[in-house]
């Protein structure tokens, strides 16, 4: 009988708490675009990497600005974590290794109480997460349409990521939070022409406008030892739209380049639960849905006029599909004393492919497959060593992409279907094909990630 009542209490609180958050998440899913980050692909900090990002119902420090801002509300005090992350790629496309450019960076995660009095006492917390590359703010790399590559990993981790967040603890068992994934997009004209000086003069006017994607979350602890979480991350892409006009020896040239969603992260909804059966063990299970089907793709959109000839690129449609993922992690404090605690983290997950492999590709050679993720790490916690405590941690993760194979189809008669390949000769369209994915597109491989960090609690 007690179990039934307990279950009813849990369900009642959960339903009551999740209604507004679910409605908000649904609305935000359809909100306009708000880039991809290394956190989305591999995890935030050593513990995030080791747990394969199964953190939505556990994180309550600065990393919760990404995993679940609602969890930030459940923390206490001030935590500052600095970490470094490195990636090594064994991804192979057509027999060639595909590197991850700029494979190292540093993260900062800060979570802190806001010291207020009165009705807001012990209720408000703020958090800040940032990831930066060592030498540059970002790299934007859009490949030629025929290059074989993995769009899930390609040019998704090479940018500054900044997420400030605020969270409110509505009651001792529930917290809500919201953050903003902030970057900027660019639009404007570039014109090269003969000016008053009778020489070439450039008129260049670029507006860099803020783009932001919401990160929102709810965290509920209906009973001690149980945490439930709902988190939403709005899709994020960096828009660039630039029209270049020039006059080359009297011949007009106009190029409209649109990279609508570079450095893309899809909208993500995460549902998670964590249990702590003892003070030494914590287990978490996350399920997530990522709306990849809304992506316009990783290619430049070009609309150009050269002399009197107008040409436009045509990105393939319908190649991307939503993905589902399940992630689980366990944290075990295997040694505890007054001066030190040692723990280990293990995680595993699976995510479906964001590429619809049943859809045949023409000129393009995108590669992706279902992914298996395995992570492991260790944490050493030293109470009172610096501030309230110092934690040192290391996490590693291996992501394995299953092998994919697709046979290309050759055009037999003009006009050719978009999902076929064509050679240079109109009369013999099936001959002389130079596409690198012909006759068969193959890819597989994995990525190894290592993260080390230090956290101080004040």
């Amino acid at each position, binding site marked *: 009988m007690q179990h039934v009542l307990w279950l009813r209490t849990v369900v009642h609180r959960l339903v009551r708490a999740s209604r507004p958050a679910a409605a908000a998440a649904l609305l935000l899913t359809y909100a306009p675009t708000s880039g991809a980050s290394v956190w989305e692909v591999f995890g935030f900090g050593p513990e995030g990497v080791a747990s394969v990002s199964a953190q939505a119902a556990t994180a309550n420090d600065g990393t919760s600005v990404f995993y679940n801002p609602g969890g930030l509300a459940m923390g206490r005090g001030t935590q500052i974590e600095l970490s470094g992350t490195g990636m090594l790629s064994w991804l192979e496309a057509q027999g060639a290794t595909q590197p991850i450019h700029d494979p190292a960076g540093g993260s900062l995660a800060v979570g802190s109480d806001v010291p207020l009095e009165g009705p807001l006492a012990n209720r408000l917390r703020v958090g800040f997460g940032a990831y930066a590359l060592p*030498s*540059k703010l970002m790299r934007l790399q859009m490949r*030629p349409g025929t290059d074989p590559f993995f769009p899930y990993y390609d040019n998704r981790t090479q940018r500054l990521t900044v997420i400030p967040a605020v969270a409110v603890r509505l009651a001792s068992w529930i917290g809500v939070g919201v953050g903003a994934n902030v970057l900027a997009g660019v639009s404007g004209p570039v014109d090269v022409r003969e*000016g008053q000086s009778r020489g070439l003069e450039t008129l260049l006017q670029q507006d860099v406008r803020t783009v932001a994607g919401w990160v929102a979350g709810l965290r509920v602890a209906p009973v001690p030892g149980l945490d439930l979480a709902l988190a939403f991350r709005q899709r994020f892409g960096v828009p660039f739209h630039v029209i270049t006009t020039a006059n080359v020896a009297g011949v007009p040239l106009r190029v409209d380049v649109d990279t609508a969603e570079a450095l893309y992260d899809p909208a993500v909804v995460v549902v998670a639960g964590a249990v702590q059966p003892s003070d030494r063990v914590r287990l978490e299970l996350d399920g997530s849905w990522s709306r990849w089907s809304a992506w316009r793709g990783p290619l430049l959109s070009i609309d150009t006029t050269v002399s009197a000839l107008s040409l436009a690129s045509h990105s393939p449609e319908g190649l991307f599909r939503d993905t589902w993922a399940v992630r689980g992690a366990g944290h075990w404090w295997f040694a505890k004393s007054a001066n030190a605690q040692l723990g280990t983290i293990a995680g595993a997950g699976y995510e479906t492919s964001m590429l619809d492999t049943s859809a045949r590709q023409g000129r393009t050679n995108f590669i992706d497959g279902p992914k298996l993720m395995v992570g492991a790490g260790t944490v050493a916690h030293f109470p009172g060593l610096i501030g309230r405590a110092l934690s040192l941690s290391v996490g590693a993760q291996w992501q394995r992409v299953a092998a994919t194979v697709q046979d290309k189809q050759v055009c037999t008669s003009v006009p050719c279907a978009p999902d076929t390949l064509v050679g240079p000769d109109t009369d013999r*369209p099936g001959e002389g094909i130079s596409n690198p994915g012909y006759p068969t597109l193959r890819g597989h491989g994995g990525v190894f990630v290592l993260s080390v960090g230090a956290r101080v609690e004040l």
Partner: protein
Amino acid sequence: MLAGFAAMLAGTRTSRATAPLLFGYGPQSTALAQSDIESPDPAASAYTNPASACEPGTRLLAGHAYAWTDLTIDDRAMPLRGIAGTDLAFQLGRRIGRRWQLGGAVAAHLPDESLAQISFRPGSEPSFVRFEPSPQRAVADAVLAARYAALSAGAGVSVLADARGDVGFLLGQDGNGTYADGATNVELPYRLAPLVGVGVDLGPVGIAGRFRGAQAVGLDLATRADVSVTGNPLNGTTLVTVAGQSGYVPATWDIGARWNPSRELRLTGALQLARWSRAPSNTAEVTMAVRLGLSPGQIEARFVRPSLRDTVSPRCGVTWTARLADRPVDLRVGYAYSPSPVPEQTGLTSWADAPAHIIGVGTGVELGQAWGIALRADLAAQLWMLRERTFDKPSEVLPFAHYRAGGRLFDLSAAMEAAWR
């Protein structure tokens, strides 16, 4: 396109002078015409003087400033954007022992319309080099500071980014007809400008110094067009490279002093040296590498450096603290003279600028405690009056051989500050 990337966090446009450089950061500095180098609002210390970032306490400032522009060339109003933006600043300082203080601060200015406007205008067109869109650029400063007894020092960086890379597009033809394809590879490497501040606090008297490094967004971007379409005159390869420094802000050296003749009265003064003479050309260099069946007449364009002049700007301010309804109220007034860095125009360029008198007024009120936070509100206004200036080039055949420049700017700034002491 490429220039655009440059701006991500920083960016700029043709020239010069960010909004805080023109008007000051926050209402206090605005009202005192930036004479408060020795005694800045600690919340704004990351910008105004890094040495003050160690002031004990925790402070958060949120404000907004809007400047109306009424600048004219030949009595015609120049269509400039209003200079508007939000100020967000945070400062944290702690006393360590009896004589030491340590602290840090961050300050950001975020323009309303865009984080940045990057532009290169045609070099021969008239433009207000100090007031055009560079004030639309975001500013992001972070500093650390320490104080021992009466001596304090702080240092940090102002963060910007350059842009370099290439965009390529291919217009081709295969058995199915024509097609277009493209690729980019653009990087935004960091560019950091140093910030340094020092101060000596002798009680009723204090002196301070500040250095802010020069800033600009370097662009080096190439666009490559490969055209291979039957019968097109541009068949072949065209490589257009645009390179330049956009949004240059000069290095500035400031010295300032403070004197408190009484508990209610504070006098401040400062001198600012702005190294405009180091400014690079504010027009883009263009080069074309062409391998076509025809030859363009122009394949390269370079403009000379602008040879701007260094300026020394004197500033002074008065702050009177009164009591109104038992609350302390600061009343502030300030004056500054801002010489023009633009020399006489004798060539193709037609830059416009004039010396300006700057008057600022403002007030600040302690609002008391709410939820354990000490709240404060500040308001300020600043007026720039540019003396009308006539430019006469030596030759009538030069573009814009004669023109007059002048006008006014009016800036309003308001901010709320929360402090935990």
